């Protein structure tokens, strides 16, 4: 009696700080008797063998000595979800600026590397991944060129371990939208500011082109230090993708004509009014990362569901669309954003693609990511049903072949407090 009391106290003391108590496990895992969600053949019955971080084999009735068998009867295996734009890892507590690492001071800093500031111990990370999100893009904000975004897997003890193979230079394209109801600038003022911003942007760009030419010359001084321009030179050399954030209709059109004569790799992000300019976007063959789906329309006259439906309209017009939450602590809502997109026109399969294979293709990592296929990195999860359905339970989660414990601060607090002891005196 006394012994159990002491034991429970011990347990309490480990729980009450909400820390991880279980460690992710590496090894050989055999997922038996489940179904695999595919994009074109529905859910197929097959076993999945995970070894050395990858999906080694997909086949009926696999057996492998030494594999830890995980029974997936009545469960479905999904590719891990990829969030195409977040502050996860760069932000801990919203109102405390000293825990915010996504917005540096200054306008032209494309070389700032998001990966360097990823906090692998962020409490937000376990909270996110237990909902099936295995990978997310950490995006810097603030300024015209806030930095270089980095794709991370949501497990690892160093940023390098977490790195998932894509980086992109972020450009907040000059915007003529309003920033809030307090923004009472006249249309003229907005136009003037826009003109000025575009001129500055073009000046910066021209400098980078100049620098590109200089660096290409055999006499170039390798020691000439100019990281701001070098980051853009990478874009000009197509070594880096430009992630161009733009939302308002006329801004999207301006951005399209701005990139027209530029030979670079570019992704458009945001694109809230993309549904109004699908012809132009398809004409230029632009890939889009849009979201959050769960957001308000941009204009008071818009139909109430334009943000729900935007992704679907673009997808149906033939644009490759991936989704993002733009969140930090609630990136876990990515499946629900996808669910709303599915409901408002996209359909289940296309919405699933928009958080898996499309993202992987847009980031150029579809060789390793985005679907449950032999040879790919083992980023996947096992659930008792449609992962977009709110009440669905996720049972197992693998990131880079690691079996991740299904716990987070939120589950630990639940376990501790559901039946609090001592209760009321």
């Amino acid at each position, binding site marked *: 009696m006394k012994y159990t009391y002491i034991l429970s106290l011990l347990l309490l003391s480990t729980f009450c700080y909400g820390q991880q108590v279980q460690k992710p496990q590496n090894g050989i895992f055999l997922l038996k008797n489940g179904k695999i969600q595919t994009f074109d053949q529905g859910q197929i019955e097959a076993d999945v063998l995970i070894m050395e971080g990858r999906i080694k084999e997909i086949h009926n009735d696999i057996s492998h000595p030494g594999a830890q068998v995980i029974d997936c009867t009545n469960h479905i295996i999904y590719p891990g979800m990829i969030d195409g734009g977040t502050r996860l890892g760069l932000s801990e507590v919203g109102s*405390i600026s000293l825990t915010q690492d996504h917005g540096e001071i200054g306008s032209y800093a494309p070389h700032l590397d998001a990966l360097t500031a990823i906090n692998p111990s962020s409490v937000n990370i376990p909270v996110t991944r237990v909902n099936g999100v295995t990978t997310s893009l950490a995006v810097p904000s603030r300024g015209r060129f806030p930095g270089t975004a980095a794709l991370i897997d949501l497990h690892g003890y160093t940023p390098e371990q977490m790195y998932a193979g894509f980086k992109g230079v972020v450009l907040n394209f000059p915007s*003529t*939208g309003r*920033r809030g109801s307090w923004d009472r600038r006249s249309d003229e003022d907005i136009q003037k500011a826009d003109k000025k911003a575009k001129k500055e942007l073009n000046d910066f760009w021209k400098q980078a082109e100049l620098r590109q030419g200089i660096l290409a010359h055999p006499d170039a001084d390798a020691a000439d230090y100019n990281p701001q321009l070098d980051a853009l030179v990478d874009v000009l050399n197509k070594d880096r993708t430009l992630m161009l954030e733009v939302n308002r209709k006329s801004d999207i059109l301006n951005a399209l004509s701005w990139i027209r004569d530029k030979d670079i790799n570019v992704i458009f992000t945001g694109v809230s009014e993309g549904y109004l300019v699908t012809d132009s976007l398809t004409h230029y063959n632009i890939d889009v990362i849009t979201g959050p789906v769960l957001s*308000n329309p941009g204009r008071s006259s818009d139909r109430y569901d334009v943000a729900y439906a935007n992704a679907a309209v673009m997808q149906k017009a033939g644009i490759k669309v991936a989704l993002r939450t733009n969140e930090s602590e609630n990136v876990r809502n990515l499946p629900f954003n996808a669910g709303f997109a599915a409901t408002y026109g996209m359909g289940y399969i296309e919405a699933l693609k928009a958080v898996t294979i499309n993202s992987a293709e847009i980031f150029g990592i579809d060789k390793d990511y985005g679907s449950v296929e032999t040879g790919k990195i083992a980023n996947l999860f096992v659930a008792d049903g449609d992962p977009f359905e709110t009440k*669905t339970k996720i049972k197992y989660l693998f990131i880079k072949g690691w079996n991740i414990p299904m716990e987070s601060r939120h*589950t630990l607090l639940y376990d501790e407090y559901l039946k609090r002891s001592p209760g009321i005196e």
Partner: protein
Amino acid sequence: MKQVLYIFSFLILSYPIIAQESGDILIKNGTVLTITNGNLKFTDILIRDGKIKSIAKDIKAEDVKVIDASGLYVMPGIIDAHSHIAIDAVNEGTNPVTAEVNVGDAIDPYDINIYRALAGGVTISHAMHGSANAIGGQCETIKHRWGAKDPAAMRMDGAPRTIKFALGENPMRVHGEGRGIVPATRMGVEQVFRNAFAEGKAYMKEWEAYQGGVTSVPPEYNLRKQTMADILKGDIIIHCHSYRADEILMLMNVLEDYGVDKICFQHVNEGFKVAPELAAFGAHASVFSDWWAYKFEVYYSTAYNAAILTENGVVTSINSDSRELIRHLYHEAAKTQRYGELSDDQALSLITINPAIQLGIEDRVGSIEEGKDGDIAIFKNHPLSIYAVPQYTIVDGAVRFNIKEDAADMRQEVNPEEQIPAFYEYRAHEEEDSCLQGVFEQLFLHQH
């Protein structure tokens, strides 16, 4: 004269009642989720003069608009116990106590967010003062009678008076940090309440003395103290913005000392830690489905909060506090099935009968029962499914949202100077802490 003025706050109620459009409607053959009486398949609901007249199979009625709900789900209109839509002022953040102000004075019946809430099945919201002050202003329970022109027509007549209190970081930040005045700590916040209640009590006494003929001249009139007196008399339900377990316990202690018992804690992210104490006090809890970590006092949160509170017997609701979330409260409620495995009825209660109880209007709304108001939301697919799509939203028997027939542009007021309405950029996290709306303009600080 003095009698009249002393009780003038009641005059508002005696003001001629605004004609509130109500209708007759017959909803045929739906799956009716009554909330309080199980689910009824293939059932009709007849609404007459804005009230639910009967719930039965094959109701015959003439001269009524008919909605065919075959294959659809029919639930009570969703109620949001915490929002800031439909009002032109949220925070009078200039003083730690502003009990006298009332956001019901600033109703904006043309706010497009009312319509957008209707498009999410929400028929009633609790328009609240913000959380800049320990004792903020009085709030207004509004019915989403979209299309009504008179702000007064949005009020839910007869709904109890409510007032916003706030604990923790917001009042500390605005007054302590922002201006260098009390309260800068949670200790100070407690004293703000004790002081205000003590003054309200003394004020009540002064007026009783004057009215009883003990004193010869009227005491100084003070609407702020008068409002505190009204709380002490039990005329006003407190809705208190709160996060940490300690401050929740503190306020319950203060209220106990002053004999006040009508309290609903809002947000109450650490409510799960003191769920037994909340249940014992009879306090209610109105929470976010999953918001956390947007400031330090919500860092030790759990999305299982609503489930823990519910399992401990606390009357709990899920609220929006956001013009975005208010559009899909049905989905927010469903999250308690992922985070805590609540049953369908438990989850739906969080956005219907429970918030109704918290606002003191459960005898009129919050479930589908004969005699209750004809506030109904009709969904394609079960409302707790991610695939749910609201089809019709009905307030007092009048259809206020109709997915098929409504125009895209539903504005009630059109700016004559604007050809195409301005586009507002999405700002990450603009919603969080909308409780502090307006304060930063007042303080000339930046939000982040």
